[in-house]
Every structure is written in structure tokens, then in C-alpha cells.
């Protein structure tokens, strides 16, 4: 039972982390109609920045904050230099152009930080476990990830639904020409939105950094997951991204933890041992295929424009 609670929390934590990535993707998708494969690169850059700044300043929190702003700046620079020229183009062009950016960023990171990975050590006050329920211990760091991401989700909700900027973002999503004609600086708005997405990706990367090693290509696997989530949730819908992200996080974590045992109960040991790893990594993709077949526009489609 303890294991189950722990795995559930892990699933929630992973799901919320994925939400950070998916939220940025879905914002950029929904508002600029841009397929951004390079989103994973921003995640990677966030992690590298955090590891570097934390080593410089000697403080984890300060490093994280600096990394967040640095990723925001990199994102805005990428938007101004490259992405801006891709708006209104074919999706194929987006896929190809941003695929080129992935190659560029991977090499750039290799050039600057070298081919071997980095690690980001946790400060002692985070590297502890806390008692969340009587008799159940849980990692303080993972718990703080859950808290931070929930706060970010709430912030995003307020930003998009309750502020003037959010109103412009939503207006820009439904009709960009009209918003531009009404005198809003749509270019600046897009740069800001892209920067926001980049910062969210960077935040996900720097929070994941102490759990995994910081390495080249770390963004590519998780990018596909984030895409799966945006598609399941419905492109452009932040609410959909949140629901789908938590669902995928649970499915992935619990699948990996308990699926092999489940198979062992039904089949022989050998069958379970060979099939379980493949099947548990497949579960998410299977979920996505089923969702798309049943609801080709995703669960929470933002509606036809």
C-alpha cells in the first residue's frame, strides 16, 4: 500500500512535469499554429543553465531562478530569429525547420558543455524525505515539484483567463488579423507567448535535472511525450493538457511499476518478462491512438477556428 501511494505520487509528479512542457507546446500550437519540435531543446537548455548557474552561485534556488530567466531570453531570441518566419507556413515546414533547430541546439550544447552529461546536486534541505501520511515517507524534492507545478498551473489559469494579456492571447488564438487590426502589437505578443512557453519548458528541465542526469538528447524523448499529451488533450487547450498530462503521468509510472506483476498473474513468467517492458512503454501511445480514433480532435478540443 505504501508502495502504491508512493507510485501514485510519482505519477502525479511526472504528469505535472509533463504538463509544464505540454502547456508551452499547446500555447504555441494553439496561438501561433506552430508545430515546435525544438521545444525539447529548450527543456534541455533549461537543465544545462540550471546546472551551470547553480555551480556558479553555489545556490540551487538562485541557479534555478537565473536559469529560468536565461531560458526565457533564449526562447524569445529563437522566436525573433527563426520562429517568426515560420508562422503561417505549412506544418511540414514547421516540422522540418524546428528539426533543424534540434540538430543545432544539440551540437551547440555539445560545443559549450562538452559531450559528457552534468549533474545538479540538491541542497540538503530538499534532499530529505517528509512524512506525508502516518507511516508514509516521500521525497521532499518530488513533493516540492508537485507544489511548484500546481502553482504554475494556477498562475497560467489566472494569466490566460483573468488578465488583459490573457485576453489578448485568447483573442490572438481565434483571429490574429483582427487583433492586429485593433492596434495590438501582435509580434510582441507572440514573442512573449513563445518566451513563456520556453520558460515553462526550461522550468520542467531544471526541475527534472536533479532526478536525471543533464545530457544531450534529454529533450527528445520527453518532447514526444509532451506532443502525445497535447494531442490527447486537444491542441490549444491548457485544461486538456493538464488532464492529459496527469493521466499520462499516472499511466506511465503505474504501468511501469505494476504492469509486469499484472502480466505475471495472467501469463507465464517468461511471457511477462519479455512482453512487460515493451508493453508498458507502449501504453501511452496506445492511449493516444485510441483517443484519436474515438475523438480525432482530442479530448478537450479548443474548437474549430
Amino acid at each position, binding site marked *: 500500500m505504501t508502495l502504491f501511494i508512493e507510485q501514485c505520487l510519482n505519477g502525479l509528479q511526472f504528469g505535472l512535469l509533463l504538463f509544464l512542457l505540454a502547456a508551452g507546446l499547446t500555447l504555441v500550437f494553439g496561438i501561433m499554429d506552430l508545430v515546435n519540435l525544438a521545444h525539447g531543446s529548450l527543456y534541455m537548455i533549461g537543465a544545462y543553465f540550471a546546472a551551470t548557474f547553480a555551480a556558479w552561485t553555489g545556490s540551487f534556488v538562485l541557479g534555478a531562478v537565473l536559469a529560468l530567466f536565461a531560458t526565457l531570453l533564449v526562447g524569445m531570441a529563437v522566436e525573433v530569429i527563426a520562429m517568426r518566419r515560420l508562422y503561417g507556413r505549412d506544418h511540414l515546414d514547421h516540422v522540418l525547420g524546428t528539426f533543424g533547430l534540434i540538430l543545432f541546439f544539440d551540437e551547440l550544447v555539445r560545443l559549450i558543455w562538452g559531450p559528457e552529461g552534468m549533474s545538479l546536486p540538491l541542497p540538503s534541505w530538499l534532499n530529505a524525505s517528509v512524512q506525508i501520511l502516518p507511516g508514509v515517507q516521500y521525497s521532499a524534492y518530488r513533493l516540492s515539484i508537485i507544489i511548484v507545478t500546481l502553482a504554475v498551473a494556477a498562475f497560467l489559469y489566472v494569466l490566460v483567463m483573468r488578465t488583459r494579456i490573457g485576453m489578448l492571447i485568447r483573442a490572438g488564438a481565434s483571429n490574429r488579423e483582427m487583433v492586429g487590426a485593433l492596434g495590438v502589437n501582435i509580434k510582441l505578443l507572440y514573442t512573449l507567448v513563445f518566451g513563456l512557453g520556453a520558460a515553462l519548458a526550461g522550468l520542467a528541465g531544471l526541475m527534472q535535472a536533479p532526478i536525471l542526469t543533464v545530457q544531450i538528447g534529454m529533450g527528445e524523448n520527453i518532447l514526444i511525450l509532451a506532443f502525445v499529451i497535447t494531442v490527447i488533450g486537444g*491542441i490549444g487547450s491548457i485544461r486538456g493538457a493538464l488532464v492529459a498530462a496527469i493521466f499520462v503521468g499516472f499511466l506511465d509510472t503505474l504501468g511501469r511499476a505494476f504492469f509486469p506483476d499484472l502480466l505475471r498473474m495472467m501469463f507465464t513468467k517468461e511471457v511477462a518478462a519479455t512482453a512487460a517492458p515493451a508493453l508498458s512503454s507502449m501504453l501511452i501511445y496506445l492511449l493516444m491512438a485510441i483517443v484519436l480514433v474515438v475523438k480525432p480532435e482530442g479530448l478537450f478540443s479548443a474548437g474549430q477556428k
Partner: protein
Amino acid sequence: MTGWFTARNIAIAALLAALLLLPVFAELAGNRFLLTLFTRIVILALAATSLNLILGYGGMMSFGHAAYLGIGGYAVGMLAHEEVLTGFVQWPVALAASALFALIIGALSLRTRGVYFIMITLAFAQMAYYIIAGLARYGGDDGLTIYKRSQFVAPIDLSNKVQFYYICLALLFGSIYLIWRLVNSRFGMVIQGVRSNDLRMRAIGFPTYRYKLVCFVIAGTICGLAGALLANHTDFVSPAMLYWTRSGDLIIMVVLGGMSSPFGPLIGAVALLVFEEMLPFMIKLLGTPLFGEAAVRGAEYWQIVLGPLLLLVVLFARGGIVGLLSKVRS
């Protein structure tokens, strides 16, 4: 028609002649690597050509095309592992397995459109990747070495490198011809009509879903053939063959060469792979007078040039290399 002697046709003819004469040149120059490289290029060009059928002519943006490469390759690899060595079984199985996979994922994916289609084909390819990576009997993540290439009757010997090259080249030209005939047939016209406007094609009575599905299966089958060839070429198959970045490479080849042009994918494959081989040398050669030692070190990081270059092609050369050549007045 401005006659046959346009810059584009001359370039294509020169490329085809060069490909035909390549083994002779490699023999004369004593450069074995050249033949290996170009066998690989021809095989990947075959895969890109099949992708062009759905991507260029059909407007179906599949981001999971490498899956067939892996399925075709693994069909050969697994059968070889089980000591079924004859190519008369291996290759039909490779084609049938790819066709079946294309039929299933096509039937499901073609219900969606646009970005969703890109993503669902990607998801299916990733599923295939994880299934194959999980096959412990066939090497799992580490891949599977093929000790004997596919066996055919007497004069055909795939272990002979020159002969294997010509077999690959013949299959490539055959497929290009097949696809060219196909897209200019009634079927191809319907497919191209669907690319322009699915709704209108349906309104005038074509069951577009079925047409697209058949097109999708044909492309998958041809790519499965490329997979079987690739397995024989490298004597090794691994899950990396169908990782999603490989699908990205195939799309790059098609777009770089020129979409919806019969020879575009071939040109793209040659350009991309030769460029990949040449770029480190080029950086070294051009950079050394300017930057000295730094250029030699920089040559290692050639992808840093390739990435932005791709972006530039997307931004400024929409028709790819074929499009650029067509603009040149002879």
C-alpha cells in the same frame, strides 16, 4: 515544354549516369568506402521515394515512415535468426509485414487530419519501436546481427558488393518508374486531387479514404523493401532504424530534394548524405585559413551548420533542389 535540355533534366541525367558508373569509379580509385556509402544512399533514397508518394503527392504528412524501414529490416533479420535464409521467403515476408502494418495504422490514422495525423503516425512508429526494442529473443535494444545475407538462386549473390549495389539501384529506378506511372494514372490524379481538396473530391463521388489508404499501403510496402535492403547492407538491424529522428531524416531528404517530383527524394538523399560526409572536410578546408586551429576543432561539430541550413532551405527554397534547378534558365 521548353524542350528536354533544361538545367533540371541535365542535372538529373548527370546524377543518374554518375550513380550507374559509381562502382567503376570506386574500383578505379580503390575507394571501397565510396561504394558502401552510395549503397546506403541508394537504399535510403528508395525509402524517401516511397515517402514522397504519400507526402508529396498525397499530402499525407507521415512522421512515422521509418517504422517500415525497421519492420522490413527486422523481417529479414528475424527470419535469418531462425535460419530461414532464402530471400524468396524473407523478402515477401518483409513486404507483407510492412503492408499489413501500413494497412492497420493507415486505417486508423487516416481518420485524422493535419497536426493530428503527423502525431498519430509518430505515435504508431514509436509503438513499433518499443515493441521491437522489447523483443529479447532478437536482441532487444542491442539489435541483431545478421550472419548471412538473403540467399537467392545462383547468379544473384548479395554478398558481392558491386552486384548488391546494382540490385539496389535497379530497385530504386524501378520504384521511381512505378511511382511515376502511378501518380500519372487515374489513381494518382485522384490522390493529387485529394491533396488539393479532400472535400471536393468526396463531393464529386470519390471514396477518398479508400484511395488514401491504398496509397499509404503502397508507400509502406516500398519502404519495407528498402528496410530489407538496408538489413542486408549493414548485416545488422537495431531499433535505431525506426527511431523517430530517422523518420525526420527521411522527411528532410524528400523536402530537400523537392517534394512531388519523381527524382526529388533521390536528389535529396544524395545531397543530404554526401553533405553529411563532406561537411567536416569543408569546414576544415574553408575555415583553416580564417580561423586556424579552431576550424579543425569546429569540424567535429558540423551539425551546427546543418541545422540552420535546413531552416534556410525551408524558408527560402520551398521546392527543394529540384525547384531551384527548375528556375535556372538554360
